[in-house]
């Protein structure tokens, strides 16, 4: 520990930074219009120092936080010396290290006694960003220009004066203007709350003490990650995961992560195929989120979280023009889930090779929907991403079954799906069901969490139903020998019921759903951990009793033969025979 820093003051300053980040989050969540913000928590708040380095990462959405690190640097660099007290910057463009364009980010420089000392940053998923398809996800886009409004770094406040012209330009290009305006207000509230607290901190401890403590907090995170890397045997490890063809016809695509551990340093090299004219390309900023999340799924370090964690990690995203390091004009809107979750899986798998007992199973990937249409109740347009539709199952861990309904992987439990009544009140829809799904959790000694099924019908006007994501053929990855035989119930899919017929869809589509018709979005379960035939029989029976596993699933996936679905009596002899057969086969 550095001599200069008082250990007690250090703990106090850490607490104040955490509280500040939290208060920013509360301010944003309680005031936002878009359900993607206020129900789904699809936003992130962070604090940066003057460098700018991220000094406080909260417990918000992992997909945003990795990309915030390069984005902040890029945006601050764009303005160089032209940053003044009272400025507020806005940005969404992936070409400037943004994630996907619908995640719009606000940056407020915090000045103290005339000096730039901090940045408070608030990033969130808006409900719309203009472009041809409501809510931004356009599976037909072959270029970024067909996906919405690109906002390079701009000032929306210049020395304390609001730039109405700039805001008007932006809002004029967005659907549901009132909601978007409300959400920008909410973001502004958050960065202002952050600024207020940081100034109070500086008034109390002075700049030197605060800086020294923050430096020490970052050094601690660095030491922590280094000591973990040091515990991994030196070597080169490889993880490979597949982005499945989600209907684009370009085939499956493999992403490889090569992790090299040397002493306490780690370098990660990503190898991905050339970018494609489909919305699953990830620009560099977003890919950082995928890589860092893969690292954190392995590291599972306790807070504080700051940029110090990544000092010992160098990342090479591969050549420009590939799906994990896309360049203009690659379309990209789906990138925060696809290919990011696959990229995360590749990195996680490489670490699994390095430290097999330390890594949890993969979570269900997002395959969800956006809805849009006309609300006759208030005679206005509506558009939203349906967060309930992407809540997948969590992966099992070396310690326990995966959480049900906690994903997707890229959000790691930070989302909330919103109450059925609030959603029906806000949008002219009927939600016919929101349920866990039998046999959806990956088989394992520890079972993966169950995915969810969300079924909707429009009340009185046709509804546009736009799907995105993947994970409809390849289930979430198991770990430590977990494998499922019944794959079909474990992957995502869409069912559209119209005129007595049910269409099964496993691709990304834009459909019109009429009143009287229904669309159900099924989101995958999480991966299991360990050999499923080693799962205790009573646990399997309990799952059967609760219809989390079917009688057939118990036999196929777990080698447990339930004689009677009523009494749940187990045929012990048949079970033993089945289970020992598998042991012999291996």
């Amino acid at each position, binding site marked *: 520990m550095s001599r200069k820093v008082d250990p007690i003051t250090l703990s106090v300053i850490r607490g104040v930074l955490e509280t500040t980040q939290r208060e920013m989050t509360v301010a944003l969540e309680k005031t936002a219009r878009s359900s993607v913000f206020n129900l789904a928590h699809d936003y992130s708040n962070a604090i940066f120092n003057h460098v700018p380095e991220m000094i406080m990462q909260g417990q918000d959405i992992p997909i945003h936080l990795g990309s915030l690190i390069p984005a902040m640097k890029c945006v601050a660099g764009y303005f160089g010396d032209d940053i003044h007290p009272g400025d507020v910057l806005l940005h969404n463009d992936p070409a400037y290290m943004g994630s996907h364009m619908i995640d719009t980010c606000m940056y407020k420089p915090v000045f103290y006694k005339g000096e730039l000392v901090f940045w408070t940053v608030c990033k969130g998923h808006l409900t719309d960003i203009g472009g041809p398809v409501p809510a931004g996800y356009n599976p037909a886009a072959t270029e970024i220009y067909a996906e919405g409004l690109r906002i390079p770094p701009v000032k929306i406040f210049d020395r304390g004066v609001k730039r109405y012209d700039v805001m008007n330009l932006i809002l004029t290009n967005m659907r549901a203007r*009132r909601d978007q305006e409300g959400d920008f207000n909410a973001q502004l509230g958050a960065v202002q709350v952050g600024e207020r607290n940081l100034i109070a901190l500086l008034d109390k401890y002075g700049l030197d003490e605060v800086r020294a403590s923050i430096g020490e907090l970052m050094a601690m995170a660095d030491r922590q990650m280094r000591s973990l890397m040091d515990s991994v045997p030196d070597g080169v490890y490889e993880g490979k995961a597949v982005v499945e063809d989600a209907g684009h016809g370009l085939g499956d695509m493999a992403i490889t992560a090569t992790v090299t551990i040397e002493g306490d340093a780690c370098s990660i090299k990503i190898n991905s195929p050339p970018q494609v004219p489909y919305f699953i390309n990830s620009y560099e900023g977003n890919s950082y989120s995928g890589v860092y999340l893969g690292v954190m799924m392995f590291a599972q370090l306790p807070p504080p979280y700051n940029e110090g964690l990544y000092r010992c990690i160098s990342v090479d995203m591969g050549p420009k023009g590939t799906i994990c390091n896309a360049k203009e004009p690659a379309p990209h809107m789906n990138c925060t889930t696809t290919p990011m979750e696959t990229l995360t899986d590749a990195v996680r798998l490489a670490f699994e090779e390095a430290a097999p007992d330390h890594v949890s199973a993969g979570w269900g990937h997002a395959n969800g929907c956006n809805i849009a249409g006309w609300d006759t109740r208030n005679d206005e347009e509506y558009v939203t991403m349906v967060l309930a539709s992407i*809540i997948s199952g969590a992966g099992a861990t070396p310690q326990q079954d995966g959480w*049900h309904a906690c994903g997707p992987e890229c959000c790691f439990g930070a989302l*909330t799906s919103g109450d059925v009544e609030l959603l029906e009140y806000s949008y002219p829809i009927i939600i016919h069901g929101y349920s866990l799904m039998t046999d959806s959790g990956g088989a394992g000694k520890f079972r993966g969490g169950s995915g969810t099924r969300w*079924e909707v019908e429009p009340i009185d006007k046709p509804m546009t139903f736009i799907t995105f994501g993947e994970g409809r053929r390849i289930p979430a990855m198991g770990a430590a020998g977990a494998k499922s035989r019944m794959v079909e119930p474990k992957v995502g899919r869409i069912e559209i019921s119209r005129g007595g017929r049910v269409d099964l869809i496993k691709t990304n589509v834009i459909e019109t759903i009429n009143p009287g018709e229904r669309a159900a979005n099924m989101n995958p379960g999480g991966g299991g951990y360990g050999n499923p035939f080693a799962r205790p029989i009573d646990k399997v029976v309990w799952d059967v009793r609760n219809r989390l596993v079917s009688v057939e699933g118990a036999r196929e996936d777990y080698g447990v033969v339930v004689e009677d679905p009523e009494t749940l009596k187990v045929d012990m002899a048949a079970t033993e025979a089945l289970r020992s057969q598998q042991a012999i086969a291996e």
Partner: protein
Amino acid sequence: MRTKYRLGVDAGGTFTDFVLADDTGNVRLFKALSTPDDPTKAIENGLALMSEELGTEPSKIIAECDLCINGTTVGLNALIQHKGAKTGLICTAGHEDSLEIRLGHKEDGYRYDAEYPPAEMLVPRYLRRGVRERVLSNGEVRTALHEEDVRAACELFLKEGIETVAISFVWSVLNQAHERRAAEIVREMMPNTFLTVGSELYPQVREYTRTSTAVTNSYLGPTLKKYVDSVDRYFAEHGARYPVRYFQSNGGLAIGQAMTDRSVYAINSGPASAPQAGLFVSAPFGKNNVITVDMGGTSFDITLTKDANTNLNKNIDFLRYRIGVPMIQVETLGAGGGSIGWIDEMGLLQVGPQSAGADPGPACYDQGGTEPTVTDANVVLGYVNPGSLLGGRMTLDKDKAHAAIKQRIANPLGISVERAAYGMFTIVNNNMVNGIRRVSVERGYDPRDFVLVAAGGAGAAHITALAREIGIDTVLVPKLASGLCAFGQIISNVKYNYMASAPLRLEGAEAFSRINKLFVEIEAQGVEHLEADGFERDRIEIGRSMDMRYVGQVHECTVGIGKFEIDGDTVDQVKDAFHQRHEQLYTYSERNNAVEVVNIESTIYGRVDKPKPPSLGTGVGADYAIKSRRPMIFSPDGEAVEGPVYDGGMLGAGDEIAGPAVIEETTTTIVIDPGWRARLHESGSYVLTHDT
């Protein structure tokens, strides 16, 4: 008070506190060990202590009480230990899993924690039975109730030996018909089964919250019933003249039947009475903005009251279960005298939330504990007298405290034991300050506008340090601090919450008349309820609030409003109150945007006479009460100063003490930092102020 006494019994986890107020303004505090298996046992033991001191029989004391009031943790404990009833849920088909999906969220603080378990289900999936029925968001029936599905659920429940049932349907708040019919069927098929109907218990928009609240209510009902029956019986047998009143988490009293039917109102009964007590002790000073902090052995409870209105929580996760009904907002931290200091993986000093509990307890208890606790730090700092805890009934080992801090904190950090002890003191205070920010700043209040009231046995040792950190310049420490919650209960009113949902824009005569009508309806219910409870009309008071938001927002602000008819003119008052609250909370308002209402609520109070306030005799000067001097540490560098120790029992009204000093009361120790002074007020509280 028409009779001689009023008795408050606050059953906590370790101790049951008894407060006996008499008609001369005398308030006595007693403590007995809690007896969770048979709570009346502790009551009996407490009454034995009282009768010893007063020289009368327990039944005479009870017979002379105008009210016997009980706060209890039985509901809380049943929920913590998952020892509630075997419960079945009947819900709308397709929505059986809202309880387990829990909105798809994993609690913050555990984002990358692979071992954090999912919440245990109060009703497992196979006992959550969907029935075909559906009401839409405008209240219309889309699918009629399939009664055969309800019957099938009951048959399963009977087969499974279900003890209690909850019914909760989507949008039942806008159309209760289906829930009511289903309830009739359940009552017919399972006649003696405890039943909760969602729209009756919690008629507010939000299906998940309503279902979870109803399930929790059924889960706890039988436990509460058993408890209430035995306490009621005990007091009745001992000559009580009036039914026992129970304290609810909403900050008011209820009779036993209400406590049983609406058991979910009982889950945080104990600490919810702190605001009443805080207001009472602040009243002589003309203050009604009060923050109370109650620090015991394992936890630290914070409440906030602004303009005599206490922060309420609605729709929160309580012990990981979503609870809708209003509860006094009690922010609870793992920060008590027993909280353990430790060095985390990052090399940072942390305190709590783990606690050494009562066994083995802090190292200085010398019961085998080796972990350094806050109490150990307070002993090393010279704040707590090793020789005289609980009036000398317990002694502490200062060397053990010293050794534990040295080994676990000072040596690893390479600092002196004194610095380490002061560090632990600072960190635990900082945790508490952050907790106070959560109830104040996050709710849009500046804590500097408040009086800080210390409660609990351990709170007074930290109170001036906390006040300094937050910037509060007036602190009150009642002599009764360690039994303040029990005291709060005996000065509380009967209080019931009545709710209705009214999702509509606050525009136009139709909307106004709907809201007015709903208020009138729920208030009529409430008045009827209280009149049946024996309250005359002039003792019944009504408070109104509305949950409002801007169109398009999802979260509401609860705004208190006056009791008037809403019309084209008065609606501006309502909107204005909302805009102001929004600004206070979030730094801005949107006065040009439309406002909508989601839920409304009326709180119905039955006024109970207060006991006569205490009054102390005038003192003869503080010097008279100095009993010793000892080294005390008030500086981060660990340097000690010699400070006087006062015997609180010897001090009288008007006596004044300048810090650094310590005042020892029988059940609490008050630490006066340098720069602060304490003055004992005739109402029985020390007033601590900062020298300017």
